[in-house]
């Protein structure tokens, strides 16, 4: 299960609509709770480096990740996941998504954007510990009030 503030959830979906027909991408900042669940407080927009094929590929500039990681640290938050969109394609992980996934224990959230409108949003937790055994496990998204996401520990 991943808990997401309503603001972060809407921000992800709006980003997918804004970049349609290209894929959007971004970083989810938040906290790990004692029971192992994660709470996303904000979705940080990133640019898509894959200007060669932005309609079906995305890549986040690691320089942006370093900056976002630092901003998270200043707020006592961590990178706990990422999001991207699938324009005119289901909200399911693809082979490319799995091959390129390296943040174990983090969530990869995908929003399907059909004809410019965000439809389904699904979250997949990257399980395993290395390339040989990695796999995605679909997880439930629970929306929480914005102030709860910010004060959760």
């Amino acid at each position: 299960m991943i808990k997401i503030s309503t603001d972060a959830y809407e921000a992800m979906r709006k980003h997918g609509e804004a970049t349609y027909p290209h894929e959007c991408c971004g970083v989810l900042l938040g906290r790990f709770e004692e029971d192992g669940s994660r709470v996303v407080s904000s979705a940080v927009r990133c640019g898509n480096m894959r200007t060669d094929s932005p309609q079906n590929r995305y890549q986040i500039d690691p320089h942006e990740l370093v900056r976002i990681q630092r901003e998270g640290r200043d707020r006592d938050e961590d990178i706990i996941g990422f999001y991207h969109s699938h324009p005119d394609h289901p909200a399911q992980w693809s082979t490319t998504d799995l091959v390129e996934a390296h943040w174990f224990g983090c969530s990869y959230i995908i929003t399907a954007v059909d004809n410019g409108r965000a439809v389904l949003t699904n979250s997949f937790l990257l399980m395993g510990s290395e390339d040989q055994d990695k796999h995605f496990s679909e997880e439930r998204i629970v929306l929480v009030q914005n102030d709860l996401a910010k004060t959760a520990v």
Partner: protein
Amino acid sequence: MAKVHIPTPLRQYAGSQPAVTVKGGTVAEALSSLVAIHPELRRHLYTDEGKLRAFVNVYLNDEDIRYLEKENTALADGDTISIVPSIAGGR
């Protein structure tokens, strides 16, 4: 001394710490100190041939070491190293 920031997926191999302070005159020496302290990190950062894995980006402060002198880049006291696995995909 340099501080190495550990990304969330690798902290379980680094004593659950978000950052580790290490000694070293270069990035290579600092990373070598890091895996000496936390040996479980080695296979997640390096191939069997001892090369940094392709998806592992290493930043010295705000610069990608690939655009500096790679792992031979010299460190100054108080420098910050960030280990940043890549983020990519698509349908």
